[in-house]
C-alpha cells in the first residue's frame, strides 16, 4: 500500500497560468478529499467526492478552482489563472468510508508556488 499519491510534489507557476494537481487515492477508498494548507489558515477543506460523485465543494473558490474525479483511481484539482494568494500546499486525502468516525489518509501534498 503506497498510500495516497500526489504529483507533482512541487509546482511553480507564473501568475495567470494554469496549474493541475493530481491525486491517486488508496485503492478501495470511496471518499476522496482536497484540502489546502497555509500557515495563516491551517488546513482548509476544499471539496470531496464519494464513489467519484462530487458531494461537497463548499470550500472551493468558485471562479478559478475546479476538481474532477473521472475514475476511482485518480482525482485532479485545477486552478486557472493562478494568483500569488493561491500559493499553498494542496493535500489530497482518502477514506475507506464516508463516515464521521473513519480515519482519513493524507498524501504528502503538492506545494504550489505562484510567482
Amino acid at each position, binding site marked *: 500500500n503506497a*498510500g*495516497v499519491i500526489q504529483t507533482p510534489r512541487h509546482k511553480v507557476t507564473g501568475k495567470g497560468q494554469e496549474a493541475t494537481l493530481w491525486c491517486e487515492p488508496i485503492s478501495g477508498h470511496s*471518499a476522496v*478529499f482536497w*484540502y489546502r494548507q497555509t500557515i495563516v*489558515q*491551517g*488546513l*482548509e*477543506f476544499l471539496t*470531496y467526492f*464519494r464513489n467519484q460523485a462530487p*458531494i*461537497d465543494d463548499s470550500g472551493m473558490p468558485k471562479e478559478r478552482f475546479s476538481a474532477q474525479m473521472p475514475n476511482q483511481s485518480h482525482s485532479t484539482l485545477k486552478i486557472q489563472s493562478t494568483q500569488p494568494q493561491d500559493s499553498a500546499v494542496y*493535500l489530497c486525502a482518502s*477514506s475507506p*468510508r*464516508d*463516515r*464521521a*468516525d*473513519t*480515519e*482519513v*489518509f*493524507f*498524501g*504528502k*501534498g503538492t506545494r504550489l508556488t505562484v510567482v
Partner: protein
Amino acid sequence: GDSVTQKEGLVTLTEGLPVMLNCTYQTIYSNAFLFWYVHYLNESPRLLLKSSTDNKRTEHQGFHATLHKSSSSFHLQKSSAQLSDSALYYCALSDHNAGAKLTFGGGTRLTVRP
C-alpha cells in the same frame, strides 16, 4: 457550521516537560467526533487519536486526550515531551451529517528543544 479553535499557534518546550495543546470546538450536533492529526516535516499528516465518547480518555503513542462535551474541548496532552514530538498538530471535527469530511483548527506547531 462546525468550527475548531486551537488558540496556540506556536508552542516551544524543553524536552521532558509536559505538553498540553488546546482544542475547543463548536457544532450543533451532539454526535461529533474529535480527532488529533500530526504532521511531521516531509511526511503526510496522520491520525494520532480520536474520540466521540464524553469524558473518556483516549491514548496513543504516549499522547492522550479526553473529550469534554460540557466545555466543548479536546485538549492533547503528554506527560513528557521528546525531541521527536516536534511537529504540526491539528485538531479536527466531523459529524454524522458531514460524513468523513473534517473541519480543522488552525494548527499548533510544537517545537521541543534539548
